[in-house]
């Protein structure tokens, strides 16, 4: 019932009537509000907006020509290609596993369910650098599987598979975390009805479940994608920083920055910043589209 109400536009959160105020207190209260707002805005401006602006200013410091030159640099292009490739592999994988995990957790009762939920959260809790190190310890030359991989001439660490694995690990929770509460509140009645009407498992999934979760799913995928493209720590450990081969965009930026190539670094950074902005706008649009997500975002913000 609650979630049903929450689905109605404008009814997501109960609107409390404003508290009656005594006149005398009104002036200090307004002053307090203005002060707080001012401090918050200033903080955001200095710490978030200004750096973003600087990214773009610095990128174009040498003129449009050098900006384009920096972007069309073969190493930069290779890094872009690798980043897109990684995202293209990681996002569909996490999409599939995320749905499967959320489905299992929301629809079934089984032993070790809480264990599974905790496991899903592990990548959030562990520092990305450590996630990268874990893969090095497993697949690296001195790692557990290192000798065997070496014998069979399979390269994981300091190669694309390592980058994909590390990114998958770090971004795994986004889709599952988004779907679990959604599926739990939605319940099973539509699916049960579909079954009783003669639909099979796949039909029920495609025709009933997927449409029910599509906005939450898209939201999770967006977040997952943003993180997959922007991940630095874990990827940095497993990639080996081989220019043109195992450098992703964030690594490329870092290298250029260490080389005092500021225009190049900032030009590349502006691409990532643009991607982030596009993601944020898409997320905002989605939230407007789906009041339920907005309510959740508001709850999480609190």
């Amino acid at each position, binding site marked *: *019932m609650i979630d*049903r109400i929450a689905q109605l536009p404008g009814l997501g959160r109960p609107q409390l009537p404003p508290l009656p105020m005594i006149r005398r207190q009104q002036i200090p209260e307004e002053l307090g509000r203005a002060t707080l707002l001012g401090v918050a805005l200033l903080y955001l401006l200095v710490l978030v907006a200004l750096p973003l602006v600087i990214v773009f200013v610095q990128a174009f410091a040498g003129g449009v020509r050098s900006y384009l030159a920096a972007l069309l640099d073969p190493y930069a292009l290779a890094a872009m290609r690798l980043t897109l490739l990684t995202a293209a592999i990681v996002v569909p994988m996490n999409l599939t596993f995320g749905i499967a995990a959320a489905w299992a957790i929301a629809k079934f009762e089984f032993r070790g369910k809480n264990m599974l939920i905790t496991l899903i959260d592990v990548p959030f809790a562990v520092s990305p650098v450590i996630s990268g190190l874990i893969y090095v310890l497993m697949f690296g030359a001195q790692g557990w599987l290192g000798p065997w991989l070496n014998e069979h001439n399979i390269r994981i660490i300091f190669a694309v598979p390592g980058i994909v694995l590390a990114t998958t690990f770090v971004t795994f929770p986004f889709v599952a975390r988004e779907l679990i509460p959604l599926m739990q509140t939605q319940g099973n*009645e*539509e699916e*049960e*009805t*579909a*079954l*009783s*009407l*003669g*639909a*099979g498992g796949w*039909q029920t999934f495609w*025709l*009933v479940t997927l*449409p*029910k979760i599509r906005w939450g799913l898209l939201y999770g995928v967006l977040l997952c994608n943003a993180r997959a493209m922007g991940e630095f720590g874990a990827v940095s450990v497993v990639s080996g920083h081989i220019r043109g081969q195992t450098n992703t965009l964030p690594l490329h930026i870092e290298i250029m920055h260490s080389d005092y190539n500021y225009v190049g670094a900032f030009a590349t950074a502006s691409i990532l910043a643009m991607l982030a902005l596009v993601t944020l706008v898409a997320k905002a649009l989605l939230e407007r589209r789906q009041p339920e997500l907005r309510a959740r975002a508001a709850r999480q913000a609190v």
Partner: protein
Amino acid sequence: MSITFEQVTKRYNAGPVVNDVSLRIGPGEFFVLLGPSGSGKSTLLRLAAGLTEVHHGRISLHGRDVTHVRARDRGVGLVFQHYALFRHMTVGQNVEFALRVRGVRRSARARRREELLQLVALEGYGNRMPDQLSGGQQQRVAVARALAHEPQVLLLDEPFGALDAKIRVELRETIREVQRRLGMTTILVTHDQEEAFSLADRIGIMHNGRLLETGRPESLYRHPATRFVATFLGAANLFLGERGPSGLRLGKRFIASGTSLRAVKGDPSGDHEVVTVVRPEDIEVSEHDEQLDSGALGAGQVLSVDFNGASERLRVQLEPEWDVTSAIGREHRAVGGTAPTGEQQIVDITRTSAEQARLALKPGLRVALGIRRFHLLPTPIASFRLLATAPATVAALRSSPLLRQLVESMQAPVLDAQDAPTGSEREGIQAGVGVIAAGSHSIGEIARAAAQGRRWLLCIPPRAALPARILIQCDYEAARSSTLRLVASVMRHLSAEATFVSLQSPAAPRAEATSAFRRLLDARAELQEIHGLDIRTDVHIGDPASWAAQLAVTAQPALVVLGVESTPSDLERILSSDFGALFSDVSTSVVLLSYTESQAQLAGVRLDTMSPLFPAQTPQGAAAAAPAAVPVLPGTPA
């Protein structure tokens, strides 16, 4: 039969939520499962739909065993309380869904869609989204959708629960109309008795996972078998009465003479305490006794008068000198907002406007009450009487989980040995079930109580847990009926699984074994036929003493129901030689004894539910006395 449940059991971690339910629903029948929340009625519906797996038993739809058939292949139409419409599809797409997943051609789908929307009076709504419809309209869409694939049965889970009163009545008529027109077998689950009365061909009442009683609405209302059903279906006054040699008596007054009681039913069960059900509308009110047209009950003071439109509700407090006792335990009585009234009996009465015109009443007036019509519950457990006197033992017995569960569920009163004897005890009639503490001394105590005429005795060991199973043992033909009556009463109120056990000696000749099997099957059939309950059967090879010894120390505590027929002097010998271990100090099992005194003329006569007296006012068709539920017998052709 359209839908058949045979001994269907479903367990969750805590225990059975649906417990040995057997039920047959005929073609085209509208069956309503009624019960409080948590009684297992929705689970039974989900079992029928195939959304949940059964643990035990069999479910058939139209003669096809579907116990292990998947939900999608069962061909049932299902409607939930919250509609469960597919929100991202239009109304039309919702209705077509069943045909779409079957790959039916678009044109055929469209034809069927229009047909169904017309059936639920929603023509022209096909292109709307579900969110644009009102709750009642959405539920009609859900009904149309459930009918698209021409299911064999329609299952409705509280379909009106989320709607407001007016729309509820409208939709109820729509559903009844659709169901009649299609002649579709339907099960509806609800907790609303008004809904059940207005829709049902037959009602089944569930409580604690048991199907307590089934029957046509009016026969369930007139002839309930349990206190629970009597008070759950409409209001009822329940009094402890005594059937003595001179008739039925409530308190000081005889309501019916002995000859008329015997003439009506030919009940051979002897004299005992009974639970009398009197509906509020069956009580007559007048200024004086002499003006009453019906059997006088007593007199009392009007406590309150509530006007409800068509009728008037009175509460009258009976004066204590009439000695009328409630058959509902003190802790289960509704106080009704008035000051605590102690042990005085408050009577609920409803009067029609014609009766109101004849005699206007105000609170405070003294009135005489008469009983126009009554019904006796077939349960032998009218009350529990603690026979122990030591305070510690009494406290231990009162707090024993089994007695508490029985009392809680049956709402029966528990009387102390110190309590004033009820009228029947003064008459020499032994009231209710005697409760004693188990131990080495208990056999002697039982024999003494039996010699005084007590027929049912519950023997509870200290620290006995709530029994997980009920085992019934009765090898005496003459004791069977009264034992089964006791078993039926206990079974309805415990969630434990019940098994009738036949004890057979390995050395016994073939003929004896055959007759033991016969007795086993007879017992099961009798329980089904007369009480509408299903039971399991088991054979134990060995002598009674070894069986008893095994049960006394079992890790799975049992309630052992023993049916014994003997003379009072033989009882002690039989109990100690055959079942002595069960009464020992270490036994963990509870014993419920049904004792029948050897009397040749009583043997083999069957007991039956009593029907109301005063036949002039109660046309007594065969239906009135018919068993409430349709039993399921193994091997009966469906």
